[in-house]
């Protein structure tokens, strides 16, 4: 399945330096002659592709990479404060919600439990919704800054 001279054949196809023993081996070894056929075809194609090629100048690529590096560094530097602000926002929202609930007088609970009318339900839903939105908003902020 593998011939030990395969690498030598590939190298010889690349640099054109064929020894007589390697040439003789090529006549006897089906694997190596296969290798030589494919390698020569592909290498000719590669040489053709590289001929007359108009590559972007190295200096331009270097400058582009440096600009990218600076942008990445700036993004990394600004990401941390955003993360802290997002996390603090989330904590603040949760604490505020808990505090708000604890401040509701017992009479309000009784009133809501006794007569769950339209006003009571709307008020309760409003409090719950604003709390949820505040928490979700903070998490979105955290996720966005993380990204």
């Amino acid at each position, binding site marked *: 399945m593998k011939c030990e001279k395969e690498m030598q054949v590939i190298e010889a196809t690349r640099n054109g330096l064929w020894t007589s023993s390697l040439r003789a081996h090529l006549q006897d070894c089906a694997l190596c002659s296969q290798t030589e056929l494919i390698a020569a075809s592909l290498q000719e194609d590669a040489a053709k592709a590289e001929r007359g*090629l108009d590559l*972007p100048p190295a200096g331009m*690529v270097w400058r582009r990479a440096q600009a990218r590096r600076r942008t990445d560094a700036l993004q990394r530097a600004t990401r941390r404060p955003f993360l802290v602000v997002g996390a603090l926002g989330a904590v603040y929202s949760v604490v505020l919600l808990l505090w708000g609930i604890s401040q509701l007088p017992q009479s309000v609970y009784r009133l809501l439990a006794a007569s769950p009318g339209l006003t009571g339900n709307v008020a309760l839903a409003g409090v719950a919704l604003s709390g949820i939105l505040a928490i979700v908003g903070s998490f979105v902020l955290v996720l966005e800054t993380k990204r």
Partner: protein
Amino acid sequence: MDEQTFHALYAVTAKPLWAYIARMSGRPDVANDLLQETYCRFLTARGNLEPAQAKPYLFRIATNLVHDRWRKGEDTSWSEPPEIGCERDLDTQIDVRELMQQLKPRERQLLWLAYVEGMTHSEIAQATGLHAMSIRILLFRARQRAAELLGRKERAFHEV
């Protein structure tokens, strides 16, 4: 890596890398962009690598970029138009191009890295992300398929 070292690395690797990207993607028109992106990613992520170690890593980045294009559906087929050349060259060119078209992307990649770049199995493993142990068998299968396709073409030529 300083600018001078990069210039030297670029001079040695840019052309083969361009040819690899162009042949793997089948899109010479986007090869320049992918080439620049490859070096940008290399310099921002692994700019401290020794030039000798850089080659497989550059090919790895280029491979990932080409795969990304396939995944996003930006390149769905082999779309390279045939170039004009002398008759013999054109024959060879069309042969190789047909061969590349008929091979699976992975086969194309392995054959190119092994036979054009002359990479060892461990270097190919580094460049492709495949396990070094599987390179040997995958390369063997790819070579058999390529030889079969080239042989079929040759037989058809002699019959005509």
